[in-house]
């Protein structure tokens, strides 16, 4: 069967904020035309924003802890070597591997990291193929493993362009005055021009190779990555208009066109690629992040690790065009992780349930059922991968590392040993950032604590460790690290007040936090960030009258601060000044469209103004940005039913809620011996279908049965069976909750019981199971108590991070004492689906012997 062709283009750091005015002025006509035929939007980057990690997340749909690419460079512990990151470290299959196994002919060019080229059924040219290390007239060697199959090397190496081939006339669009000032160039000018020549040469090399392959090979999928926008932005964005204070008039006049010129050149290349791809090919154009321009450019960078990433705008570009894909439409809420799942769905291929991204269903003209498989990693077939025993060929790694250092991506240390340690620590730090930013703070903490032990002076580790302790409610530890760090950091490179305020807020000492912020404000030392903290603190306390003037102060110095506008809008809304509230929310949205909560508050303000049609639009947009905003859905049902008489639209939202329910699994959870079996028994009596295999028999410890399912124990390895649990109740102990597949919605009844009671109950259970232990008596295991406390904290963090779960906490003691009332509460949580009469008789207090007061 003929495959749907796909052309997947990566433009590192491309940003709509720069593209839009260029398109408006007719300078990017190819992209402008493409936009009209495509669905487009912003795309959120990931943290840390390092290209090899991001482009691998794009190609795998997975976060870096899963795909294993943790930075620009890597260490090999076995032989003590350092080298640029290679794809042999990637632990997940990329989109081209998956397509390879489905019979697609794939061509891949210059992707980060694609060295050594993988043995795919097509052509792969690695990201080191075009690196230049020799003078123009010397032999330019080809790194071993840079091209697969090697038979293409002969043709492709002739399509590499050396920087010295780039003539002054080719540079002219970047520096229009170049030809007239050739005699006046300084050494610094020559360095800057060399940089443009080098990066432009690499860019046209990739274009030459990909266009050659598109014309001369059979292909179904072409992926090509260009990094020139990013590279030139890092050096030349400072020279773009408006002139920055730190830039001289002369340099501004000479270099102000570089950024626009490279975008225009990318448009010219795009036109050619589109022409070669043909009308029927699906086009995807993506950047991994944007790049700050105009007034948002940082004036200086702090002296901390990888600070050059502060130039990045967290929103990149996304565009998709093809058969069955919407035209001239915008999409919201896309992430880099969504590209591979969306492409797979578009190609009617199953999406791995272990992928972290979602299918961007709004891209498609018709709603389509997405097929899923547990994981592509366990599938058999020809995935075009390096064999397991494969050893990457040697390459000139020092040169590659020197190049990365020159670009500012890594810092060079004095000796190899120090460099080795630094890279190992950097990559561990990157992994901790991945964990922190994906709701796994405790995993992040274990790495950060290790790094802290190795180096107590490392600023980034100190800052992250303090913040993560705050996030995990360990304020005592946060304060202890903070106090030590404060003594060390005499240069005051860090804003200690911000940290102090964060700790106080977490400690619930809002008044004290406000006092500090007020003092800073009074002394004139308050930054916008601190003022925002102050205003938000008041708002959390519902002190809207105190918060309002602070938001206004912020806006007096920066009228385009979207967060302050939104905050002010909320204050006005709460004071029932609906018209002003709507105005402020609309202003905020105009600046930062993706703020779903702001659309929601606009909707609320418009309801207050009885402008129901407009309110419905605002609330619909809220749901486009964040489909899990249930409060918006409920308001919409209300508006459509009561005010707009639009039963069809109301039913869409009612059906969504119903469909969610159809995709819902009831989970009973808690620590072992917290009453989970009792709760399962209650649900069973209440008419809920409970999923149990009865492998574990009832015994003296649980005379009415355990209500367990063996498969739950191996959830981590295999959760593909969870689909069978939809609409049923399942017992999952607390430590395994995080293994639940987030493709489903979960209503979790979480049993809480005094930790001492749990531990004693567990000890007694051990004694009953093993009479030999009888002489030992019952002991209170402090270590276990700590571990349990830790598990409960993990659940609380997991709950906060995931929107597809709802948790009802049921106290064991309370349900024993007030069963009727608690059963009612459970029934309400499960939408009144229970037969409460049948449940009432289930609780048998005599079974629960371990209550401390009865022992």
């Amino acid at each position, binding site marked *: 069967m003929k495959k749907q062709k796909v052309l997947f283009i990566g433009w590192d750091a491309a940003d709509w904020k720069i593209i839009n005015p260029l398109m408006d002025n007719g300078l990017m006509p190819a992209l402008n035309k493409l936009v009209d035929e495509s669905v487009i939007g912003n795309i959120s980057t990931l943290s840390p924003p390092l290209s090899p990690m991001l482009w691998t997340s794009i190609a795998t749909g997975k976060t870096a802890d899963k795909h294993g690419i943790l930075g620009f460079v890597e260490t090999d512990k076995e032989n003590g070597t350092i080298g640029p990151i290679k794809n042999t470290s990637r632990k997940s299959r990329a989109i081209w591997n998956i397509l390879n196994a489905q019979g697609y002919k794939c061509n891949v060019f210059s992707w980060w990291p694609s060295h050594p080229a993988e043995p795919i059924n097509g052509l792969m040219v690695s990201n080191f193929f075009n690196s230049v290390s020799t003078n123009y007239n010397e032999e330019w060697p080809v790194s071993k493993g840079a091209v697969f199959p090697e038979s293409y090397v002969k043709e492709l190496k002739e*399509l590499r*362009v050396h920087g010295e081939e*780039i*003539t*002054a*006339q*080719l540079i002219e*669009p970047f520096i229009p005055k170049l030809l007239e000032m050739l005699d006046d160039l300084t050494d610094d000018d020559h360095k800057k021009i060399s940089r443009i020549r080098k990066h432009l040469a690499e860019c*046209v090399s990739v*274009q*030459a*190779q*990909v*266009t*050659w392959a598109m*014309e001369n090979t059979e292909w179904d999928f072409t992926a090509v990555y260009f990094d020139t926008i990013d590279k030139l932005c890092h050096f030349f964005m400072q020279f773009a208009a408006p002139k920055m204070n730190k830039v001289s008039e002369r340099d501004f006049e000479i270099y102000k066109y570089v950024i626009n010129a490279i975008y225009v*050149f990318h448009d*010219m*290349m795009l*036109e*050619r690629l589109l*022409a*070669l791809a043909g009308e029927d090919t699906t086009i995807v154009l993506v950047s991994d992040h944007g790049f700050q321009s105009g007034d948002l450019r940082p004036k200086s960078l702090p002296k901390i690790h990888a600070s050059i990433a502060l130039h990045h705008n967290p929103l990149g570009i996304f565009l998709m065009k093809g058969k069955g894909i919407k035209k001239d439409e915008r999409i919201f809420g896309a992430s880099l992780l969504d590209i591979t799942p969306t492409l797979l769905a578009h190609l009617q291929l199953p999406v791995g349930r272990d992928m972290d991204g979602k299918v961007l269903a709004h891209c498609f003209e018709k709603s389509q059922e997405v097929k899923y498989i547990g994981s592509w990693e366990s599938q058999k077939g020809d995935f075009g991968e390096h064999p397991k025993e494969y050893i990457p060929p040697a390459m000139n790694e020092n040169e590659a590392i020197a190049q990365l250092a020159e670009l500012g991506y890594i810092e060079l240390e004095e000796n190899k040993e120090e460099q080795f340690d630094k890279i190992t620590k950097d990559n561990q730090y990157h992994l901790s950032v991945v964990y922190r930013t994906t709701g796994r703070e405790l995993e992040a903490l274990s790495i950060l604590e290790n790094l802290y032990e190795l180096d107590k002076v490392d600023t980034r580790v100190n800052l992250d460790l303090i913040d993560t302790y705050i996030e995990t409610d360990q304020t005592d530890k946060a304060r202890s690290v903070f106090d030590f760090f404060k003594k060390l950091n005499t240069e005051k490179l860090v804003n200690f007040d911000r940290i102090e305020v964060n700790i106080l807020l977490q400690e619930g000492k809002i008044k004290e936090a406000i006092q500090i912020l007020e003092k800073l404000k009074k002394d004139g030392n308050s930054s916008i960030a601190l003022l925002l903290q102050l205003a938000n603190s008041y708002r959390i306390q519902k002190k809207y009258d105190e918060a309002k003037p602070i938001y206004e102060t912020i806006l007096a110095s920066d009228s385009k601060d979207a967060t302050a506008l939104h905050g002010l809008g909320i204050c006005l809304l709460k004071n029932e000044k609906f018209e002003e509230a709507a105005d402020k929310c609309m202003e905020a949205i105009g600046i930062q469209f993706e703020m779903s909560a702001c659309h929601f508050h606009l909707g609320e303000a418009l309801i207050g103004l009885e402008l129901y049609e407009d309110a419905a639009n605002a609330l619909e947009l809220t749901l486009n940005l964040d489909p899990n905003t249930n409060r918006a859905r409920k308001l919409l049902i209300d508006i459509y039913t009561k005010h707009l008489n639009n039963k069809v639209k109301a039913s869409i939202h009612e059906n969504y809620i119903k469909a969610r329910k159809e995709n819902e699994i009831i989970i009973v959870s808690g620590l072992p011996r917290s009453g989970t079996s009792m709760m399962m028994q209650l649900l069973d009596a209440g008419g809920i279908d409970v999923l149990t295999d009865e492998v574990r028999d009832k015994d003296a410890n649980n005379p009415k049965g355990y209500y367990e399912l063996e498969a739950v124990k191996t959830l981590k390895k295999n959760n593909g069976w969870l689909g069978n649990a939809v609409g049923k109740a399942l017992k999952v102990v607390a430590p395994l909750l995080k293994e639940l597949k987030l493709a489903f919605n979960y209503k979790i009844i979480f049993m809480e019981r005094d930790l001492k009671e749990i531990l004693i109950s567990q000890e007694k259970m051990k004694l009953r199971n093993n009479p030999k232990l009888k002489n030992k008596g019952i002991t209170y295991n402090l270590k276990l108590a700590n571990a349990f406390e830790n598990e409960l904290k993990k659940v609380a963090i997991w709950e906060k991070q995931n929107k597809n779960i709802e948790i009802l906490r049921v106290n064991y003691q309370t349900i024993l004492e007030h069963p009727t009332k608690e059963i009612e509460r459970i029934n309400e949580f499960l939408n009144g689906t229970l037969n409460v009469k049948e449940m009432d008789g289930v609780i048998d207090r005599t079974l629960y012997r371990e209550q401390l007061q009865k022992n």
Partner: protein
Amino acid sequence: MNKPTDYKIPIEGSLGLLALGAVGLKAWRAKRVENEEKIKKDKKSAKKGKG
């Protein structure tokens, strides 16, 4: 912008030509070779003329 033959190929190259990719690059390099050969030939003829 599909064929390099649509262009008058400047010896110094042009971004339009390079944006075409392989065909543009090859055409530019061919033009440079052709130009070098022409220069050599002209030099030879000039020498002959002098001789």
